[in-house]
């Protein structure tokens, strides 16, 4: 998504639009991330919390500033990894996604929009609730 700032009058003809002097490009939000870059960085880091419980990290920086991050906790069922809970800044806001085995996603916005604060929230939330999330996911599986 691009927002153009037109410094010429609105009634200019199309062929005069090269007179636009500024293009403001928002730097937050899923759709503003270069897809090729995202593809390159997909599943950047996977580390283990337990044999069947893993942590995946992805972030993208632009000019030294983090413009997108995602951390995801996954569980392994029948040799396949499934995302259980994810915290990310896609769609332009920090939020938590709770997943189930059928691919349904329960999205909850986080009040803290700073990526580091969101990460701190994720850490505390997971430490408190990881068993609950895992159980919830498994129960969905048994339905």
């Amino acid at each position, binding site marked *: 998504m691009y927002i153009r700032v037109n410094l010429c009058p609105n009634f200019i003809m199309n062929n005069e639009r090269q007179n636009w002097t500024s293009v403001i490009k928002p730097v937050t939000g899923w759709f503003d991330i270069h897809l090729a870059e995202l593809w390159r960085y997909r599943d950047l*880091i996977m*580390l*283990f*919390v337990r044999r069947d419980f*893993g942590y995946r990290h992805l*972030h993208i920086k632009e000019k030294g500033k983090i413009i997108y991050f995602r*951390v995801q906790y996954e569980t392994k069922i029948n040799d396949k990894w499934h995302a259980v809970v994810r915290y990310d800044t896609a769609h332009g806001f920090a939020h938590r996604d709770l997943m189930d085995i059928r691919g349904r996603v329960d999205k909850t916005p986080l009040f803290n929009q700073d990526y580091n604060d969101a990460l701190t929230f994720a*850490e505390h939330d*997971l430490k408190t609730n990881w068993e609950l999330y895992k159980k919830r996911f498994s129960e969905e599986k048994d339905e």
Partner: protein
Amino acid sequence: MNKEKEMIERNIEFSAEFSRYLFEHPEIEDKIPRDAEIILLPEYDEELKEFNLGMGKNIEAEGGKVVYISIKEIRPKVISRIERIELESVA
């Protein structure tokens, strides 16, 4: 709290700490092969180090590629970032 649960919760804490480290040290990303699994080995926490080493060896035994990251030191947790205050009595 049983031992494994405690280890998992310590690893959750470390996973978030590792993310913070990556935010600040992007050069580390280039050293980690894309298809490798990461195992954190905190040198100052022998119990967690052994637990994680065991996981790593299991992954290796199954043919997985593992990168061991030894964490030499960690800063103490900060409750508040305020360094100094002054109180003024009004009564």
